């Protein structure tokens, strides 16, 4: 199994490493381009220096993931402005927000060392430079810059290592990177994948640092061969990273997926069908729930699967409850009218939020419905994924049944199941299509008052794909074709501890079981 996992990880390396290199190199280059002139401008001006360094330092204190996440809504707003003013929208997902965030991240060490380097030049040498008749520009370029260079390079090295590390956080905002190993690995409990991602990112940082180190010592000791070696290494590495990108060109379709196994499997399933139609496909995996829909509505991705209940309450802001078929019709109508988004149709299974307990524990407590649960809830601890407790569904359930727990804890979904097994929590927010419902022998507690909405899986198409016949032809056979048992089995294959399948493998198996081979 492990060998298989390693070889799976290896096969993904070009797809993940390339954008990682491009992203890091671009962010570092941009960081240099902004920071070096800025350092020159503020080095001699203490009144300007303090606020600029303070702001750069403040940016550094924002957690990397939060900084990346912040740029998505910012760019969306900016995109609306440019669309209104100039007639084009800037992409708010993927490369651009990541590039901006990483550039900001790279700035502080370059700025700080730039200022320290420039101000550290011996004042006698500067006086001599002025005395022999250099212009201020010549003093900067011929004397200050070369003397400050080793200190500046030390800052560039720090920035490079930070940038390469922080670039792994770009996955949730839709930018493929080595972080995909880590984020998908964490979701599917594929530790080999997580480890592989960490090692790959560390190795890349190390290699970049070695080459930058050559440049640094080359500058300090004025050894030109060393410097040339470092520069050549960096250039070759970046070019090597760029070649697959140039060869591939751009993909025809971009398929989105939120951050859990079922979404990865369905994205692979749709991708295989599109490839069979002769289209090229790119994946944006691990998107945040709200990010995914906005990305689709803004044509940043072309297609993804979402769930009726999520769309109903989170996107449409509806609090009322309708019958399943009426609700689906209303969603389709609203999506078209308000967002231009096409609901291609339901896949046939539901992935609803249910409250679940271990079967024996439920039996001991005499709990089979949420009414029963409400009675014993004050003695129990509920565990949930990070979203659930802030979702309107939870409020609806809580109010309808008067649920009040002794404690509540949030987890990464995979770890949440483990917490239920070890007895850390008694009840969890589970998903009805989750493979672990069967494998861990869990019971979903009944909802007699029908307080929770339906969560039918729906294929959504981006506005610009509304009339894309090839896309529709490829995906329509999936409509109504996936029963919940088949989805559970596919999910289990990816989520289980032993003999794990990759999402791609699970998607192929699912297609085979359902005779959906393209």
């Amino acid at each position, binding site marked *: 199994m492990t060998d298989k996992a390693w070889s799976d990880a290896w096969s993904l390396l070009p797809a993940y490493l390339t954008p990682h290199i491009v992203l890091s190199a671009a962010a570092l280059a941009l960081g240099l381009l902004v920071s070096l002139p800025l350092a020159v401008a503020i080095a001699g001006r203490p009144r300007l220096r303090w606020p600029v360094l303070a702001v750069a330092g403040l940016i550094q204190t924002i957690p990397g993931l939060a900084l990346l996440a912040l740029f998505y809504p910012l760019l969306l707003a900016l995109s609306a402005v440019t669309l209104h003013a100039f007639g084009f929208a800037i992409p708010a997902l993927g490369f651009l927000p990541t590039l901006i965030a990483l550039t900001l991240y790279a700035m502080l060490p370059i700025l700080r060392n730039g200022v320290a380097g420039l101000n550290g030049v011996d004042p006698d040498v500067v*006086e*001599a430079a*002025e*005395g*022999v*008749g250099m212009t201020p520009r*010549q003093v900067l370029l011929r004397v200050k810059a*070369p*003397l400050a260079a080793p200190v500046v390079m030390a800052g560039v090295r720090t920035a490079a290592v930070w940038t390469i590390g922080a670039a792994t956080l770009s996955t949730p905002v839709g930018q493929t990177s080595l972080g995909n190993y880590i984020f998908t690995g964490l979701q599917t409990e594929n530790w080999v994948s997580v480890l592989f991602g960490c090692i790959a990112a560390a190795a890349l940082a190390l290699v970049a640092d070695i080459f930058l180190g050559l440049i640094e010592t080359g500058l300090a000791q004025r050894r030109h061969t060393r410097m040339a070696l470092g520069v050549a290494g960096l250039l070759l590495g970046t070019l090597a990273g760029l070649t697959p990108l140039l060869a591939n060109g751009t993909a025809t379709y971009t398929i989105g997926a939120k951050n859990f196994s079922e979404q990865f499997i369905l994205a692979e399933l749709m991708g295989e069908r599109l490839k069979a139609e002769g289209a090229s496909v790119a994946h944006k995996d691990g998107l945040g729930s709200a990010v995914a829909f906005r990305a689709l509505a803004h044509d940043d991705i072309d297609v993804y699967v979402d769930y009726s209940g999520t769309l109903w309450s989170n996107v449409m802001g509806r609090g009322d409850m309708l019958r399943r078929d009426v609700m689906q019709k209303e969603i389709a109508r609203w999506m078209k009218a308000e967002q231009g988004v096409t609901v291609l149709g339901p896949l046939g299974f539901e992935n609803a939020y249910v409250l679940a307990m271990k079967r024996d524990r439920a039996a001991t407590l005499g709990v089979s419905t949420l009414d029963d649960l409400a009675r014993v809830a004050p003695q129990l601890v509920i565990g949930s994924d990070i979203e659930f407790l802030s979702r309107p569904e939870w409020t609806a359930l809580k109010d309808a049944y008067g649920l009040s727990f002794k404690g509540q804890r949030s987890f990464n979904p995979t770890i949440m199941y483990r917490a239920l097994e070890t007895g850390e929590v008694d009840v969890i927010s589970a998903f009805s299509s989750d493979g672990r419902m069967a494998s861990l022998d869990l019971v979903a507690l009944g909802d007699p008052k029908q307080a929770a909405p339906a969560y039918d899986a729906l294929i959504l198409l981006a506005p610009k794909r509304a009339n894309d016949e090839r896309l529709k032809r490829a995906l329509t056979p999936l409509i109504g074709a996936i029963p919940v048992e088949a989805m559970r089995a596919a999910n289990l294959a990816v989520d289980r501890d032993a003999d794990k399948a990759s999402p791609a493998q699970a998607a192929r198996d699912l297609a085979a079981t359902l005779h959906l081979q393209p």
Partner: protein
Amino acid sequence: MPDAPCPLIEVKSLSKSFDGGRGFAVADVSLAIAAGSLVALVGSSGSGKTTLLKCVNRLIEPDKGEVRIDGVDVNGMAAPELRRGIGYVFQGVGLFPHMRVGENIGITPKLLGWPAEKIDARVAELLDLVDLPRDHARRFPHMLSGGQRQRVGVARAIAARPRIMLMDEPFGALDPVTRDDLGSAYRKLHDSLGMTTLMVTHDVQEAALLADRIVVMKGGRIVADGTPQALMANAADPDVAALMAVPKRQAERIGRLMATAEQPS
């Protein structure tokens, strides 16, 4: 005062304050320096001698008054342009550590756009002139001794054949032997190249031995101005008299010492 018909350097009513006008580093100073003379600016620290010197090549901009060279106001020229025509040597030397000795010496000619062969020839000539082996052109400044570095500093200052040299405690950080050596070597250069030199020093003895004329400053003003002989013979200001008495007293003591040393016991 040794008058020349048209002074090469003319300082007119120059004032400079570093604290917005409460105190003056240089207060209403006027001075005329004849071509070919070596003038020493003497005074204790804070007397304003360095400020006055740096106003000549505009490393410091005065608040009031003007400096004229050959009758032309230096404020009318671009400062870098002005400085390329004036040699400048100071105690810190300030050799460029990332450039070889040859590049250091050739910097002003390079800024002036001389062709490379001409610069190389000039560097070799200057190394001979300041008594350094020619192969030192390939060395970096950190490989030289303090005295050698100051020789390079002098060579760099005179590389573009300036008519004027400004020197700020040029030999202050050197040991006495090197100092004396370099001092007399410079005086020879000054004469053979026909330069005009303004030299700041706090060492009266050095001033007396090297200069044609000594200008004594105190509190931003000139308190005495004359040949070394004249100032030693008779100075109106008691502080100046005390100052000028130092080298005389030292010379007398040394003379007595020498006399006793020569007498067999």
